[in-house]
Structure formats: structure tokens, C-alpha cells
């Protein structure tokens, strides 16, 4: 069995009992004529952490970026199939991608604070969303939730770029929280961080899962095992025409994926026999 500790959630829920925020049916993503991801079916459970793992080029980030329609920004990118958000078609004609992104926050691979003060970084989201209320309180609340308040409360006017990488990433999480989203998407949030900073972010994710639905893409299997309730394993496969596509191989509770995977390819990957 793989040398991985599965901490997992307190009470694993079964697929049947899952309360889905996202329902993904037969999702494919095209870049122009190239089908980057083919035929994905999965569910994202409410107030759960769902991890998406797999080798690079397997399309896990591509799928993640469909959830808040960030793929709209790439010319030529278009999804096929359906993604429902609380039963509402995310790509329906009436849907406003900006509204979607207000509801579904995102944290990126490399910390990308704005070149402004810590305070302004947090206040930016609420401001552009026309949130009324005491900004100081919003900032404090977001920073507290992101476990950053104690470290920065004395220097809110300082440039965010003066923070360490791990602090910058937590600032980006706080920035996402300040908009009061329901879902937070995280695209390899720890890949640019050292192990200590990574631990802090992982602890933070566990904490946030009480209030938020979290979807995390990671190349780090141990991380998926440590933090997530459910795991989706993606891989890249070459079809008959010789074209590579990302495929979802298996989607299940994390404990089962890591202890008793039903697919041989999953087992090969998590035991390190992959490639």
C-alpha cells in the first residue's frame, strides 16, 4: 500500500449523501480544435474539500478553471457538456461570468497580490462588488479567517509584496474570502511555497472547509490525502488518432482512492509506479 497518511475528514460521507454544489456531466474542454479534456463526470460536495490530482498535462487545472469561467479569458477555449452550479447551468446564456466569479473565488499557483497595500488588496474585491459596510471590519474579518491578522495587523498600509511567499498566498486567500464567496478554487496553491508555509495553508483549508466549499488542484498526492474529503484522479491518455486528452479516471472518497482504488491506473499513480 502507498506510503501515504490519510488524515481525511472526520465523517466521510458517501457519494449518495453528497450535497452537490457543482454537478459536472460529460464535460470536455476545447482549445480551438484541440480537445484538452474529454468526458468528465464528477460532483463537488457542499462544504467539502475536493482534490484534483494527476500528472501534469492531465487537464485538472483546465477543469478547475471552468468552475469560475476563467477559461473564458483564453481566446478559443470553450467547454462542451454541462456544469451545473446548484442546478443552474454555469454556461447558460443568461449567466454573467462576472457574477459567477463573485460567487466562486480563486487562489492561484503563484501568489499574485496586487502591488498595493495589504489593506487595499483585501478591500479591492468588496469595493468592485459594491459592498457597503465598514471596510475596516471586512478587512479584519477576512484576514482573521485567513489566519493572517496577527501577523499583519500592525502594518496594513505596507505593500503586500513585502510579505513572504506564504503570507502572500494567505493574503490571496483572505482577498478571496473578503468577497464572501461560497466556493474557493485553489490552483496548486502551495507549489511555490516551502513546507512550513504549505502546512499553514493546509491547516487553513481544513478550517475554511467548515464555511466554504473548496476545490484544490495539486500535483502533490500527500497533500490531497492530508486535506481532502474526496479526490478526483485525472490522467492524460492518447486516443486512437494519436491525440492526447485529459481524462478523469476515478472519483471517490479520498480514503478509498488512497487505500483501495478501483482503477489500476490510480493505484499505479499513487504507489509511484506511474510512467
Amino acid at each position: 500500500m502507498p506510503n501515504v497518511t490519510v488524515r481525511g475528514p472526520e465523517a466521510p460521507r458517501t457519494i449518495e449523501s453528497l450535497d452537490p454544489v457543482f454537478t459536472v456531466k460529460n464535460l470536455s474542454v476545447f482549445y480551438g480544435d484541440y480537445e484538452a479534456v474529454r468526458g468528465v463526470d464528477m460532483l463537488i460536495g457542499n462544504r467539502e474539500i475536493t482534490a484534483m490530482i494527476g500528472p501534469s498535462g492531465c487537464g485538472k487545472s483546465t477543469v478547475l478553471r471552468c468552475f469560475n469561467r476563467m477559461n473564458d479569458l483564453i481566446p478559443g477555449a470553450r467547454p462542451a457538456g454541462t456544469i451545473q452550479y446548484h442546478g443552474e447551468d454555469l454556461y447558460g446564456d443568461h449567466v454573467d461570468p462576472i457574477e459567477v466569479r463573485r460567487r466562486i473565488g480563486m487562489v492561484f499557483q503563484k501568489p499574485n497580490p496586487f502591488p498595493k497595500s495589504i489593506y487595499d488588496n483585501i478591500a479591492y474585491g468588496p469595493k468592485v462588488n459594491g459592498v457597503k459596510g465598514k471596510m475596516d471590519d471586512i478587512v479584519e474579518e477576512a484576514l482573521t479567517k485567513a489566519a493572517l491578522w496577527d501577523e499583519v495587523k500592525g502594518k496594513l498600509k505596507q505593500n503586500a509584496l513585502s510579505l513572504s511567499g506564504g503570507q502572500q498566498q494567505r493574503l490571496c486567500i483572505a482577498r478571496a474570502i473578503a468577497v464572501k464567496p461560497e466556493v474557493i478554487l485553489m490552483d496548486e496553491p502551495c507549489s511555490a511555497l516551502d513546507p512550513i508555509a504549505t502546512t499553514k495553508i493546509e491547516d487553513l483549508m481544513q478550517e475554511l472547509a467548515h464555511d466554504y466549499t473548496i476545490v484544490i488542484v495539486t500535483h502533490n498526492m500527500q497533500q490531497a490525502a492530508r486535506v481532502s474529503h474526496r479526490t478526483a484522479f485525472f490522467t492524460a491518455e492518447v486516443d486512437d488518432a494519436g491525440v492526447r486528452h485529459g481524462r478523469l479516471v476515478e472519483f471517490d472518497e479520498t480514503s478509498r482512492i488512497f487505500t483501495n482504488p478501483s482503477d489500476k491506473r490510480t493505484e499505479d499513480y499513487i504507489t509511484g509506479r506511474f510512467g
Partner: protein
Amino acid sequence: MAAPHNATVPGTPQSLARSRPRYGEQAIKAVLMVAALLSVATTIGIVVSLLEPTISFFGEISAVEFFTSTSWGPLFEPPHYGVLPLVSATLITTGIAIVVAVPLGLGAAIYLSEYAKPKVRKVFKPMLEVLAGIPTVVFGFFALTFVTPLLRSIMPFEIEIFNALCAGLVVGFMIIPIVASLSEDAMAAVPNGLREGSYALGASKMTTSLRVVLPAAFSGIVAAVILAISRGVGETMIVFIAGGGQPNFTLDVGKAMQTMAAFIAQAGSGDVPVGTTEYNTIFAVGSLLFVMTFAMNFVSVRLVRRFREVYE
């Protein structure tokens, strides 16, 4: 599969539809696009302002006379409309300028790109920028009051106060920065692997620069030279001040010559009545100048683009 879990229904306040209209976004994009289109309008404006008087001009003066007669004097009585003296003056001064600018500019570019240490480059590149930033009227003053007297005292042949040689030389120095900086960009874009491959074969720095880097950057360098020629052809103040205002059809560079641009400046700054043939002449010569420089720029832009496609 998920249907029973539908907590919210589309259309409820939680719907993902636009919560408030955002007409501003589209309006802003339209305003920005209009600003970008102004550049197209400028080109159209130039063509329109040139075209009408040029057509009137050729209604009165035959194209054959314009392009073949060797005598230019639209303000004389009787007037002559042969543009060849202006064209030859333009080509001669530009030719002199290129003879100055290409070796010096290219030499500077090879040195900066292949030889100079970063510190040296940091000193000399701003120097080229300073040279490029000096107004042409200043070059003109220097040409007329310093370079021409100097040439008259050292050259073995006769040189008039206004002459094509001085004008061409000074235009040459003015366009050195164009040749140098664009060629250096082109050479800097040549991948290091090519140089290393050459060194690995035991080639010297000079051989590598001349046989590997220069050919690899060739289309970029050609683009730089074409752009420099186009600048030389269109240069007005230097040739107007130092070259004089007499349209001589001659190869004697010690004599005064009038280039196309200098003619436009001279006739355009005088009081020529609108609608007369004299007035239209300005635009006819302007059209010729525009077509020549436009063609050169077009080729240059194309070459740079192709060069970028290869290496970037």
C-alpha cells in the same frame, strides 16, 4: 443525478444572471476603439489631403513631364515641372547618409551586442539615445555653421556654402542611432546556442560575429537599414538648412541641391495661393515622398515581423 439536491432555482435572487446592468463596460470599449481608429483616420487623412491636389496637378501637368523632365522650377516663369532634380538630390543625400550610418551604426551594434561588457553597454546605449533625441534643426545649424566650413577647408574640391555633401553627412550621423539600436535588437535576439555552437568549433569572436550572428540577424538588420533610408529620404530640416534651395540636377555633391522634403518645406512655408498649380505641386511631390517612404516602411515592418517569427 443531482436534480434532487437543487437547493436554489434559476431566477431566484441567487441566480447567476447579471445582477445589475453594465452598459458602461461596452461604452468604454467603444470609446477606446475609436481612439485606436484615429490612427487609421490619420492615414486616410494623409491620403485624402494628398490625393485631391495631386489629381488636379496631373490634370494640368503631364505625368511624362513630371517624371522625365530634368528641370524643376514651378515658381519660375515659365515654370518647369520635372521632379528628377528633387529625386536625384534626395537619393544623393540619402546615399551619402547611408554610407556614413551603415558602417558606423552596424559597427556600434556589433560592439554593443557581441563585445561590450554590460557596464560599457550601460554607458553607450543612453549616449545613442541622446543623439537620437537632438532636434533636427540643431543638426541643421551644426551642419551649416560648423561642418560645411570644416569641409570647405579640408576637401580638395570646391564646396558651396549650401551643398549636398554636408547635408548627407550630417543626416548620416542623425540616423546612426536608428541603424545601431534596431540592429542590436536583431543581434541580441539571435539565440546563444548559435554562438556557442560556433565557439565549440573553435571559431574566434570575429568569425562568430561576422559569419554566424550577422547572417542570423540579417533580415532584422536589413529592416533597420531600410528604416534608416526612409528617415533619410524624409528628413527635412537638415537638408533644407544645409543643402540649400536650388534644384540642381547634378552629381556634384559640392553643389547646392534641393530634396523633395526640402522643396515641400520651402514652398509650403511661403505664401502660395491655394488652388494654383504651384500650390498643387507641393502635394504632388508630397505624394511621391509618401509613396516612397510608405513602401520602405512596409517592407521594413514585414522583415522585422518575419525575423521575430523565426526566433521568438
